[in-house]
C-alpha cells in the first residue's frame, strides 16, 4: 500500500496558512459579531485551553486527575489579584486585606503567566502525594485537594475576600488574548506530545510496568505532565477570571462542577486527542449557551412549557450519553485532525461515494 504523504515543509506552511485563515475569521467575528456571540466565541477558546491541558494529564498520560478546577482557581485568583488596582482591592475587601497583596499590581500578560506558575507550583506540591496513588484513588485524592483549595479560598478572607469573591476584574480577555493563549497551549502541548517525551507519556498510559522496564522514570514523567497541565490550567483560570469579571469560590464556578465540565469536553472530543479536546470544548460551550433557551418558557408543538431551571444540564447529559453510545471513544477517539489524516479520510470518503455511485 503506497500512500502519498505530504512533506513536513508543506504541512508546516499549510498549518501557518490555516492559522492565518482562522485569524482572519476571528478578525471578522471581532468586527461584526454582537457582544453576546463574541463572549461565547471567547469562552470556546478558554474552555479549549482548559480541555487541552486536562487532556495532557488525563488523556495522554493516563493520570485520571479530577483536580483541574483547583488549578484553574489558583490561576484565576493569582492573576486577578495582580490585575486589580490597589484602590479597587481596598474597596471590595470588607474585612481588611493583607497589605502586601493590596500593593501587588501587574499587567494582564504577566498576571496570566504568574497565575500559570502559581498553579504549576501547587501541582508540583500536591503531585508528590497524589501521584503515589493510581486509578480511582488518584481521582479522589486530586478531587480532594481541589476542594481543599476552594474551601481555603472561601475562608482566607484577608487574601481572597472569602465568599464575597473578587469583583470588577477588568475584562481583559478579548478575542486575541484568548485565542492567542489557545494557540500557545496547543503548540506547546502538541510539541511535547510529538516528541520522545510524549511517546513516553503515552507508554505510561498504555502499560505502566512495561514503561518502567523500558527505563522511563514513571513518577517523574507523570509529575512533569501534571505540572505542565496545571500551568495551562492556571493560564485558563486567569483568562476565565478576566472573562467572567467576577469570581468567587462557589461549587459551580470554580468547584468540582467545572472539573466535570472540562472532563465532559475531553471525553466528548476523545480522550488523548488534542484536536478532539478543542472540538469538545467548542461543542460544549455552544451547546451550553444555546440550551439556555430551554430554561425559559417556550412552546413545543403548540404545548406551552414553563421554564424549568436545570433543564440544560439535563439535556447536555442526555446528549452526552447518546454520543457515548455511538462513539465510545469520543468524536475523535485518539486520532488527531492532521493534514495526513484529512487526506486519508477524504480519500476514504471519495472511494466510498464512488462505490455507491457504481452500485
Amino acid at each position, binding site marked *: 500500500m503506497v500512500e502519498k504523504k505530504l512533506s513536513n515543509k508543506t504541512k508546516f506552511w499549510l498549518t501557518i496558512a490555516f492559522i492565518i485563515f482562522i485569524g482572519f475569521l476571528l478578525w471578522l467575528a471581532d468586527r461584526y459579531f454582537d457582544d453576546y456571540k463574541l463572549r461565547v466565541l471567547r469562552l470556546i477558546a478558554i474552555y479549549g485551553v482548559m480541555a487541552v491541558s486536562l487532556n495532557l494529564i488525563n488523556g495522554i498520560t493516563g493520570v485520571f486527575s479530577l483536580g483541574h478546577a483547583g488549578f484553574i482557581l489558583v490561576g484565576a485568583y493569582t492573576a486577578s489579584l495582580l490585575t486589580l488596582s490597589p484602590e479597587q482591592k481596598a474597596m471590595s475587601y470588607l474585612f481588611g486585606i493583607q497589605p502586601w497583596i493590596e500593593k501587588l499590581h501587574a499587567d494582564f500578560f504577566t498576571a496570566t503567566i504568574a497565575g500559570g506558575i502559581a498553579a504549576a507550583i501547587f501541582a508540583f506540591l500536591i503531585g508528590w502525594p497524589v501521584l503515589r496513588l493510581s486509578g480511582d484513588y488518584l481521582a479522589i485524592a486530586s478531587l480532594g485537594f481541589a476542594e481543599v483549595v476552594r474551601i481555603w479560598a472561601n475562608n482566607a478572607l484577608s487574601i481572597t475576600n472569602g465568599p464575597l469573591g473578587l469583583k470588577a476584574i477588568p475584562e481583559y480577555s478579548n478575542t486575541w488574548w484568548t485565542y492567542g493563549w489557545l494557540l500557545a497551549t496547543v503548540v506547546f502541548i502538541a510539541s511535547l506530545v510529538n516528541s520522545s*517525551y510524549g511517546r513516553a507519556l503515552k507508554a505510561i498510559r498504555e502499560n505502566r510496568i512495561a514503561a*518502567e522496564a523500558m*527505563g522511563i522514570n514513571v513518577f517523574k514523567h507523570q509529575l512533569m505532565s501534571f505540572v505542565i497541565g496545571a500551568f495551562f490550567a492556571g493560564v485558563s483560570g486567569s483568562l476565565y477570571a478576566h472573562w467572567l469579571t467576577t469570581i468567587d469560590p462557589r461549587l459551580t464556578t470554580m468547584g468540582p462542577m467545572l472539573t466535570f465540565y472540562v472532563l465532559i469536553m475531553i471525553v466528548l472530543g476523545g480522550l488523548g486527542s488534542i484536536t478532539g479536546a478543542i472540538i469538545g470544548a467548542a461543542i460544549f460551550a455552544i451547546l451550553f449557551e444555546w440550551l439556555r433557551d430551554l430554561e425559559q418558557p417556550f412552546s413545543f408543538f403548540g404545548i406551552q412549557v414553563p421554564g424549568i431551571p436545570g433543564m440544560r444540564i439535563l439535556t447536555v447529559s442526555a446528549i452526552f450519553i447518546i454520543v457515548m453510545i455511538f462513539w465510545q471513544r469520543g468524536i475523535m477517539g485518539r486520532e488527531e485532525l492532521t493534514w495526513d489524516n484529512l487526506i486519508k479520510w477524504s480519500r476514504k470518503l471519495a472511494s466510498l461515494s464512488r462505490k455507491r455511485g457504481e452500485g
Partner: protein
Amino acid sequence: MMENKTAVMENKTDKGTKGLLVLDHVTMQFGGLVAVDNFTNEVKEGELLGLIGPNGAGKTTVFNVITGIYYPTKGKIIFDDIDITPLKPHQITHLGIARTFQNIRLFYDLSVLENVLVAQHHEISNPDGDRILLHHGKPAKNYQRFWLWRAITKLGYLKKEREMLERAKELIEKVGLAHVMYEKASALPYGEQRKLEIARALATKPKLLLLDEPAAGMNPKETEDLMEFIKKIRDEFDVTVFLIEHDMKVVMGICERIIVMDYGKIIAEGTPEQIQSNPRVIEAYLGKEWKHV
C-alpha cells in the same frame, strides 16, 4: 568494593568467564512464603543461560528481583561491577538490563515503530541512571541537560530525534518486522507481538537480555522460528541472554547452561546433557514430561 575490583581485573583477560550479573545469596520472602531461597549464581558475559523449574518455583520472581520490581529480603545483586540491589527499575534498565514479560506487555495503542522508539527514551531522560554510571566511572549514555526543554522547543533536538528514528527503523528491519512498522502493536499476531517485545527490549541497548517465557503460547513452527531468532540476536547484538522457559525443546535446544529451580532453591545446574540426566531434576520436573516422550 575493593575485592570486587581486583576480581574483575583478574577476569578481564579472558572474556566469557567474567560474571556479568552476580546474584549473591538472594532471598525474596513474601510474608511466610520464601519465593526465592538463597539464590547464588552468575550470568557470564556472552552466554545463553536458561532458568527452568516447575510452576511456582520462583523463576519470574528472580527476574523481578534482578530488574528492581522487588527489593530482595536478603542478598546482593551485582551487575557489571555495580551493586544494583537498591536501584529502581528504570535505573537498572539504563545500566543495561532489559527484559520481556511472561504475559506480553506492549504499548498496544502505539505503533510498532513507536514501541521501539519509547525504549530509547531513557537515553535522554534518565539523569539518575547516568549519575550512577558516572559515579562508577563508566561513560554516561547522554548526559546533557534540558532535554525536556529542547524536545518542546525543538532546539537541538531534531537531530537526536532523527537519530533515534533511524536506529529504531534499522532495528525493526533486523528483527523482521519492517512490514508492520506503522501498524498498531495490538494488530499484530501473537508471534510477532513476542518478537516486538524482544525488539523493544533490544532498543534499550542492553548488555543483558532477560526473556521471561518467550515461547509461551506459540505453536511448534513459531517456537522454532523463535529459537533461531534468539540465537541470531545473541550474536548480532552481542548481548548476553538469560531466559526462563517451559518448553523443553527450546531450553535444551539453545541454552548453553541451565539452572533448575524448585521451591525457590537451585536444585541443579549444568549443560543440557547434564540436566537431562540429573536424577533430582527428573524427580522434580523433567521426569513427568520425559516419561511421555
